[in-house]
């Protein structure tokens, strides 16, 4: 194995040459599945994903902005700025709360729908498609739809005959926006939970029934543990995906009221628009670190949970 790695590496500079001809000298794998099939993907990914992320470890420490003609190293100035004006902690707190609640709502709604629509009937198949519709509508459009619903003179207040400023609370609007996020993505979670439910062997449910387990007992003792892989996937994608949220927040609140829904990407967008590129980059680096700090323990923890159940 190890020498395969070494030889393929030496082969890389002239990948197209000698394929098949020097069969005797190359390991079989290099002939049958040559590296150059993977190289374009690796090159594009490295150039437009990895390199920007590496640059993101340098530019936050400069004064790159639209106000300076050149870029100079300034150390931790940008981080001091965002820490001192309180935006750093606020962005971290808002984003984490947002991600947590969005994951809870998305998974809660998704699991509920999956359990309701579990049997494979035409009725259920139709409504699965209905609940998948929000996934197909762009997040920005979703945001505008809910703005129209929840505005103070919007449809919900009109329907209920109330006058509640749904999008004007510095505490509850964030929660409401995460409900909207959950609504937008619940169809995807539902599909994955449905697949998980379908993967449970019928004999297992039969056995539970023979042992006299009711629906609740069957759910908690058999189905829920068997849903572990689906849960891992759903929770991970929901948490990580919602830390990168922008569209729904921008379209419903724009980060307000009083910056109470200003997640990382909203902040970056606003500060970048003011020409403070390095400061925006500093926030982007913090987002990167927060995502890594959440993702690694999360994936390890959920994987371990799968094995325990």
């Amino acid at each position: 194995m190890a020498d395969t790695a070494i030889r393929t590496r030496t082969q890389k500079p002239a990948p197209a040459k000698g394929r098949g001809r020097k069969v005797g000298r190359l390991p079989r794998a290099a002939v049958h599945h040559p590296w150059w099939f993977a190289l374009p993907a690796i090159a594009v990914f490295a150039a437009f994903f990895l390199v920007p992320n590496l640059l993101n470890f340098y530019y936050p420490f400069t004064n790159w902005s639209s106000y300076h003609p050149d870029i100079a190293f300034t150390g931790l100035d940008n981080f001091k700025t965002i820490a001192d004006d309180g935006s750093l902690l606020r962005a971290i707190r808002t984003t984490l709360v947002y991600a947590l609640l969005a994951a809870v709502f998305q998974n809660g709604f998704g699991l509920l729908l999956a359990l309701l629509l579990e049997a494979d009937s035409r009725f259920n198949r139709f409504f699965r498609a209905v609940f998948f519709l929000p996934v197909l509508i762009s997040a920005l459009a979703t945001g505008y739809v809910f703005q129209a619903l929840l505005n103070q003179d919007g449809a919900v207040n009109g329907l209920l005959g109330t006058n509640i400023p749904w999008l004007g609370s510095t505490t509850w609007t964030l929660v409401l926006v995460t409900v909207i996020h959950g609504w937008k993505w619940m169809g995807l979670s539902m599909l994955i939970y449905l697949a998980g439910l379908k993967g449970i062997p019928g004999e297992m449910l039969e056995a539970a029934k023979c042992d006299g387990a009711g629906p609740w007992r069957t759910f908690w003792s058999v189905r829920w543990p068997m849903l572990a892989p689906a849960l891992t996937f759903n929770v991970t994608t929901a948490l990580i995906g919602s830390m990168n949220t922008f569209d729904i927040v921008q379209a419903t609140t724009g980060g307000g009221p009083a910056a109470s829904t200003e997640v990382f990407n909203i902040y970056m967008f606003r500060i970048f628009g003011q020409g403070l590129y390095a400061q925006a980059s500093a926030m982007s680096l913090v987002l990167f670190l927060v995502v890594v700090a959440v993702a690694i323990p999360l994936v390890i923890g959920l994987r371990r949970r799968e094995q325990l159940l």
Partner: protein
Amino acid sequence: MSTTANTPSTALPTSAVRRASGVHPAWRYGRPALVLLIAGLAVGVPLWLVAVTSAKPQAEAITPNLDLPRQWQPGSNYEDAVSQGEMLRGFLNSLLVVVPSVALVLILGAGAAWVFARRKSKLVSAAYALCISGLLLPPAVITIVMELRQLGLAGTRPGMIAVYTGMYLSTSIFFMTGFIRAIPVELEEAARMDGATPQRIFRQIILPLLRPVIATATIMVMLYAWSDIFYAFFVLGGGEKATLPLNLYKVASAQLYLNNWHLVFAYVVVMSLPMVAIFLVAQRKIVSGITSGAVK
């Protein structure tokens, strides 16, 4: 309700069997009713609001509500969205960015996934781990702008395509690698015995077998790229090359259009229809692809 006829429990003839299947009678009728209620409130109301508002004259749409339009004018609203909101150009711009991105993500991703799935060495594992890191890591959007400016790609379609491709390659590589690992190697070996080159094996064996996962990856990447506004803001900005979501944002936030909900929703409808159409056409493949890839 004819819908109850479709529930599985009615397929079981006797009450004894029904009891054995554990379906409580209240649940038998309660479940479809509950589903209808949730669907109506959670999906029906928002979609209804979009549909009726996009057909109202501006005066009626200023305070959005669920009433039917007193005066129907969907035609002129959609016309305004086309003329004032530059919908056709946005549509074309979106296509010119999304279609090449999806094609690149699929072709490059399939090639890489084949190598990652079949070869076993530390270097391959490392390259694979690196390539799927984009599943979790956020793209560094600010420095992407910096890099694109230096490459002369800022504000261009190739720049946008490169960014989307880089962002979504991880997803396609992850799903495709898992899928190829489940394809028996013997298929390839048999073709190799007959003297097929790697290119030929890839094109004639691997790609056709990948069709289900390609369907899924296509819809997911298309969905993300088609509705993306955040990265488009940074890379394309407004102006000549603005995509549909950028135009929608402009329509919704410009002072000129303030309270022009009828135009906003006409835009929302036009923007969503292509994705809904694609989903309806390829529904079964998409659903099975999404579910089989995730739970593995």
